[in-house]
């Protein structure tokens, strides 16, 4: 057993649900006790999703515990099949079903005989994988299922498209700025003359999956989800893939160079020409992205040599480390990730860029490290933001786990050239605020804290609070306390009460409500 207050990556089934509900017309049925459908709340609130999340639970209760699920899972599957006619039903095991060890595969096999929808059992082991690994696995499983079937039925179209095209793999629900990144990637590809064949899983229809191999190559923008699918497609269908994350100027340039290489493999044969992106990259770097100029500008000089600590998922933490060190001249004291399964690659990526590398799932370890280093700014997850709050160090959020404020309505990609602008803003603002704070401390603060009266009520002399009543406003949240105290005293004056008792505070509250 492990004492745990908080975790970075969720349980496996969350990953499966994220992938399943990202596809169009796919329904997931969890084998779980009441209350485990919390995923629906998260999707509906954090993403402000306007449609019902296509996830239901086949509820495990006492009866199931005593006698097994029996027909319950099957009848839930056929019911969903009749009600909503999904293309696919993904039966999702949870920690509960992994402990119960029911033969879910058997239920799935039987249910698929009678239902119109396809039914599969998500092949994830609760104990072995986390949310991100499970998402990666489930995506691969679904793609493999439909491609294998298309191949068997020989409905698979294996001819590549006439003009260059790519699939974008790994954009999905509750991902960190995924929607914006996707739009930015599409724009970038468009400008390179590469058509987007398909985006999966977000918004993808299963019936089109058979066309996946028609793309010239695959793009996996995030390391956490999509790599398994990409390697599968490479192995089985000979599709090359790019796993460079186009985050930051140099990474984006590398990414485009890779695209150039892959495009030119076919371009010469099909289009009888070679494409050259060098000029495009130059132009974008110098003028479209402001980040290169920004890091040259005087403003950014102030950042030189400042210290930062970074923590997040492998993709974001590694890319941001690179940006800070190579593109903005900021010293990264420590860079870390919670993606333990990807530790080796992460180490490789940040080698030589930072003083220390931390790979851990324990947020207290990260907190201790930050407290020890005392950087000028932190770039991390929501957790690091709170750590920063506690020890008064500004923090920019660069990675999931996310909060509703990380699903902004405005356009905020992290990838591509617009992404470099967004990141530069984020970084600069974090540091700037930190300096402001500092200088106001040095000069004793801007506001005249010392002069204004500490008490919010005008004159206290004629009214006494009994100790008991005095403690009452202290139970009220700080930001409204002053107002309530004032109201109570006004009420007391109006009613000629000279001593405020606890009784009077409530009477005042009732009165002010009316």
């Amino acid at each position, binding site marked *: *057993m492990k*004492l*745990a207050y908080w975790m970075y990556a969720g349980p496996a089934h969350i990953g499966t649900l994220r992938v399943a509900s990202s596809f169009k017309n796919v329904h997931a049925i969890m084998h779980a006790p*009441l*209350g485990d459908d919390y995923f629906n709340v998260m999707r*509906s609130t954090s993403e402000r999703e*306007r449609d019902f999340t296509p996830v239901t639970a086949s509820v495990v209760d006492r009866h199931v515990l005593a006698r097994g699920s029996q027909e319950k899972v099957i009848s839930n599957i056929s019911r969903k099949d009749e*009600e909503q006619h999904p293309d696919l039903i993904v039966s999702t095991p949870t920690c*509960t079903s992994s*402990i119960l060890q029911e033969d879910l595969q058997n239920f799935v096999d039987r249910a698929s005989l009678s239902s119109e929808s396809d039914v599969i059992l998500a092949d994830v082991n609760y104990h072995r994988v986390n949310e991100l690994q499970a998402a990666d696995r489930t995506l691969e499983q679904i793609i493999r299922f439909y491609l294998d079937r298309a191949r068997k039925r020989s409905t698979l179209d294996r001819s590549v498209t006439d003009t260059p095209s790519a699939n974008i793999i790994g954009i999905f629900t509750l991902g960190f700025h995924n929607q914006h990144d996707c739009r930015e990637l599409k724009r970038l590809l468009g400008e390179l003359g590469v058509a987007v064949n398909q985006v999966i899983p977000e918004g993808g229809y299963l019936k089109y999956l058979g066309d996946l191999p028609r793309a010239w190559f695959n793009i996996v923008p995030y390391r956490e989800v999509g790599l398994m699918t990409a390697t599968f497609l490479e192995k089985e269908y000979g599709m090359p893939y790019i796993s460079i994350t186009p985050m930051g100027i140099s990474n984006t340039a590398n990414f485009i160079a890779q695209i150039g290489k892959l495009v030119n493999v076919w371009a010469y044969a099909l289009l009888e020409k070679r494409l050259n992106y060098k000029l495009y990259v130059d132009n974008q770097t110098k003028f479209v992205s402001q980040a290169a100029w920004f890091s040259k500008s005087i403003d950014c000089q102030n950042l030189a040599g400042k210290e930062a600590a970074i923590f997040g998922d492998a993709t974001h933490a590694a890319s941001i480390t690179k940006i800070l060190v190579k593109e903005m001249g900021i010293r990264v004291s420590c860079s870390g990730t919670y993606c333990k399964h990807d530790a080796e690659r992460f180490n490789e990526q940040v080698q030589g860029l930072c003083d220390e590398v931390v790979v851990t799932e324990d947020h207290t370890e990260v907190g201790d490290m930050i407290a020890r280093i005392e950087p000028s700014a932190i770039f991390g997850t929501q957790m690091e933001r709170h750590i920063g709050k506690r020890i008064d160090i500004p923090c920019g959020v660069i990675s999931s786990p996310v909060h509703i404020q990380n699903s902004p309505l405005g356009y905020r990609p992290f990838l591509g050239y617009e992404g470099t602008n967004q990141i530069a803003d984020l970084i600069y603002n974090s540091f700037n605020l930190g300096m402001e704070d500092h200088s106001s401390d040095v000069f004793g603060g801007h506001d005249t804290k010392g002069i204004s009266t500490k008490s919010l009520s005008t004159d206290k002399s004629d009214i006494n609070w009994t100790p008991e009543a005095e403690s009452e406003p202290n139970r009220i949240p700080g930001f409204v306390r002053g107002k309530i105290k004032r109201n109570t005293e006004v009420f007391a004056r109006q009613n000629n009460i000279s001593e405020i008792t606890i009784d009077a505070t409530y009477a005042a509250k009732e009165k002010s409500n009316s």
Partner: protein
Amino acid sequence: MKTSDIPTFECETGNYHTFCPISCVAWLYQKIEDSFFLVVGTKTCGYFLQNAPGVMTFAEPRYAMAESEEGDISAQLNDQKELERICLRVRSDRNPSVIIWIGTCTTEIIKMDLEGMAPKLEKQIGIPIVVARANGLDYAFTQGEDTVLAAMTHRCPEFHPRVMNQQEGDVAKLVAADVSPSNKFFDEKIGLNRCSLVLFGSLPSSVASQLNLELKRQSISVSGWLPSQKYNELPALGEGVYVCGVNPFLSRTATASMRRRKCQLIGAPFPIGPDGTRAWIEKICSVFDVKPDGLEERENQIWKILIDYLEIITGKSVSFMGDNLLEISIARFLIRCGMVVYEVGIPYMDRRYQAAELLLLQQTCKKMKRPMPRIVEKPDNYSQVQRMHELQPDLAITGMAHANPSEARDIDTKWSVEFTFAQIHGSANARDAPELVTRPLRRRGDSVSDCRSLSRQTLDVQ
């Protein structure tokens, strides 16, 4: 009241969305200041806890997971040793006065004997360990609090009438000296206090003292609350103690205090809304043989305060999807406010514990000339959504999973969980519940025109 008087209920499939009962730690750790809640479960439980109470997680909460790993499930590791190690660490980090183990689905399935281990460990580490099985196999959302409080009734000190009398008298004198206008009550009062009254249900301390005050006005003094602000201040229970619940989801606590601690339960409607509060006080008064004083006048006063809200909601219709067991009481209050309630979904309906509340609901319907709502136990969310499409209520009170999608389908929605965290008990808080209910209705007028249905799914269909 005989149970046969109660209208019939429907019961559906139980496929509905609600919070896992372990969520009770989020408010109970704040209520019981010196406690530490240890949830013995898996990552799934942890993920829920970390996301549901949201920001509170970061304020160094006094709760944590004892996260079981593969070795625990396959019994390669010794549960007791593991828990001992973790509890010792909790003791050295936080030094709580009590550790509350929350059993989860996992501990149920692998049959971990928490109740058996607790007394042994308690002796070893010198901190009381209370075990509550608040799991999703058996319970929904607020019932979690019920399991914790029921477990705590066993830890309450024994009631000794004589000593209590003495103390009560002293307290009464003290208070009497303090509160000058209500002096006259306290002279007659001491005679009534041969018995003691304990209220159960976790409420914010200011709400609890408001209810104390309401009863004090009727010269009934409350001798204690379960839970108390501190674990060491748990109220005495035993023969001669009357107990009364303030929330409709506390049936196990009621049963435990009756059967195991020989207390007498006062079955009253719950003090939600001015009507509920009055009925609650009246029922307690009748048990203590006190003639209630000025209650009607007070209730009318409160209704007057609500007049602006009543104008908004009178005649409007509402459906409860059901997820927190407060539904009957709130529905009753809203009917009294003039609303029409189509459907009351509720996770679990204890007909005996809620009997008085149900009766009041019936009377209210008759009085307000409204039809009795359909009460659906263990509802099926999918069917409920279909029914809502048919009936088109003006307001749906539902969980967050359905709130945004319903809004996108042009059904105004109030998030039900807010009722569990808002202060809706007692007369002083009468405005808070209609404030919540009217919020979606009040913003109605301002919404952008021509975007009534914003769902993408409906677009696809067209």
